[in-house]
């Protein structure tokens, strides 16, 4: 009998597929994971304390840096929180513009997540390149309205920075026209690929009960078979005006998470088409509330959450009546979705760890805050 020994490996903090500066402390038996502990905080900048030192509006550009893939969604959650705290109404057109932006964000995030998932799996960046192409188109649109591709800083309390430029809507129409072809192609390229099936099916299964008790949210929760989408469960903004379905998985493995994301992109496109149809005229609406630069909400607290592409993104604000938040807490979806990682990986191979991590879809800007 050979005597064998466990191997302890630090995957990260400098590693190609940890999606940032992130460390997985693993104990291996051969290539099989016995124990895995995520270690993070390398990107910690105490964002919440920074938020307490800034005025309400000054925090808006900082929320872009949380989940830098979806700055629009972060802006939305934060704007909703401050609006709830200060009791600010949002004009109708601005609400539609917000929904358009956030749904575009969802498409680009899911495209990116799928691309990176396959990059982690060793597909030599092809899927990623296709995803990035679509993402660049969406970023072009963001740049058109907000002036920046990633750090959009577009939402304001009670509206958005500026109205859509005239060239925006035709471009969006073109984009949505090409979208089904892109999604179908991605699916054709991937979803029946035998290698992919072998790599993703029955890997990292998260059962329903565990998904709930682990507080995971977003596509990960839905892939486990729970049709919980905040847009339906507690409709915010104007999401009660759109028809769309909630894709759910049946097994809760990596493959389901991937399929749920693909389907969510289709549903987002549906929402976008409806929003474009319903979008009210620009006339008479004042969507840039310049007067509200200095928000001074009454004493109290507010918690709002949105279905960000990665899951439930919540902002909990406590106001002491000054121009700065007294407490500024972010419920970051990637952070909490990371909790079950150790359990999901146990018993799998090293190669599966990166795939499971990719399927959780984390952004370290949000995890470490």
């Amino acid at each position, binding site marked *: 009998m050979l005597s064998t020994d466990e191997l302890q490996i630090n995957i990260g903090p400098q590693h190609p597929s940890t999606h940032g500066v992130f460390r997985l402390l693993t104990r291996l038996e051969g290539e099989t994971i016995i124990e895995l502990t995520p270690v993070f905080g390398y990107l910690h900048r105490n964002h919440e304390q920074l938020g307490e030192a800034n005025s309400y509006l000054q925090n808006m550009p900082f929320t872009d840096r949380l989940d830098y893939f979806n700055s629009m969604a972060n802006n939305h959650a934060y704007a909703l929180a401050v609006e709830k705290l200060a009791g600010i109404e949002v004009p109708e057109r601005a609400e539609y513009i917000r929904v358009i932006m956030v749904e575009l964000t969802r498409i680009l995030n899911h495209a990116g997540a799928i691309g990176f998932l396959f990059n982690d799996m060793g597909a030599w960046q092809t899927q990623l390149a296709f995803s990035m192409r679509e993402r660049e188109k969406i970023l072009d649109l963001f740049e058109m309205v907000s002036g920046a591709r990633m750090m959009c800083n577009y939402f304001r309390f009670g509206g958005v920075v500026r109205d859509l430029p005239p060239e925006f809507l035709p471009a969006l129409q073109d984009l949505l026209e090409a979208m089904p072809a892109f999604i179908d192609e991605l699916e054709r390229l991937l979803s029946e690929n035998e290698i992919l099936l072998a790599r993703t099916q029955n890997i990292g299964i998260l059962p329903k009960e565990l998904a709930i008790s682990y507080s*995971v949210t977003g596509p990960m929760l839905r892939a486990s078979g729970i049709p919980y989408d905040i847009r339906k*469960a507690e409709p915010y903004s104007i999401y009660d005006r759109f028809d769309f379905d909630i894709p759910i998985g049946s097994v809760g493995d990596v493959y389901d998470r991937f399929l749920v994301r693909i389907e969510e992109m289709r549903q987002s496109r549906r929402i976008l088409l409806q929003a474009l149809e319903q979008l009210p005229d620009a006339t008479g609406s004042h969507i840039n509330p310049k007067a509200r630069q200095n928000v001074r909400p009454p004493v109290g607290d507010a918690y709002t*959450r949105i279905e960000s592409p990665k899951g439930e993104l*919540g902002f909990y604000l*406590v106001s002491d*009546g000054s121009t700065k938040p*007294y407490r500024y807490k972010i419920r970051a979806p990637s952070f909490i979705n990371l909790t*079950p990682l150790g359990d999901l990986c146990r018993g799998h191979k090293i190669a599966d760890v990166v795939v499971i991590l990719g399927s959780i879809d984390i952004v370290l800007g949000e995890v470490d805050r």
Partner: protein
Amino acid sequence: MSDDNSELSARQRDEARAALQRDLPFALSPSGSFPSPEGGPDLLATSDIVVEAQQIAAVARYLRASLNYIYLSNITAVDLLAHGCFELVYHFYRLSGGPALTIKTRLPREKPELPSLTPFWPGAAFQEREAYDLFGIVFKGHPDLRRIYMWDEFEGFPMRKDFVRQGDKYLSE
């Protein structure tokens, strides 16, 4: 839209308060009382349910078992320095939808200890570690209560309002 929501959440809150009053009356009467400073804003005033800190695990499990709030979404610690206490805010949800049930609990700043929810909701593990790391709140029964963001040798709890920040010396000049 938002009116509907606030009405719904008020109704949920009242129901939960009534149920807790009936089944866990001892949890609803917080033991310590914290003074409000004169002049400053009263951050303690709230319409949410405030429970006794040491009973939080019992309350949470009761909510899950009897009232169907099975989804623990968010744990927030707030440092109410002027009142001399920490406030912990828990947001619970039902899977059938609807707004959050907010449960608040307060701890003395001198000895911030309360039971952990991690044994019942493993998803609370990181959030409690975060509160421990940044506020120094000790969750009894947490299986792995270590610092999560700051390095292990770090001294102090940076999110406390009385934490001396590195930049403060420049601000005072």
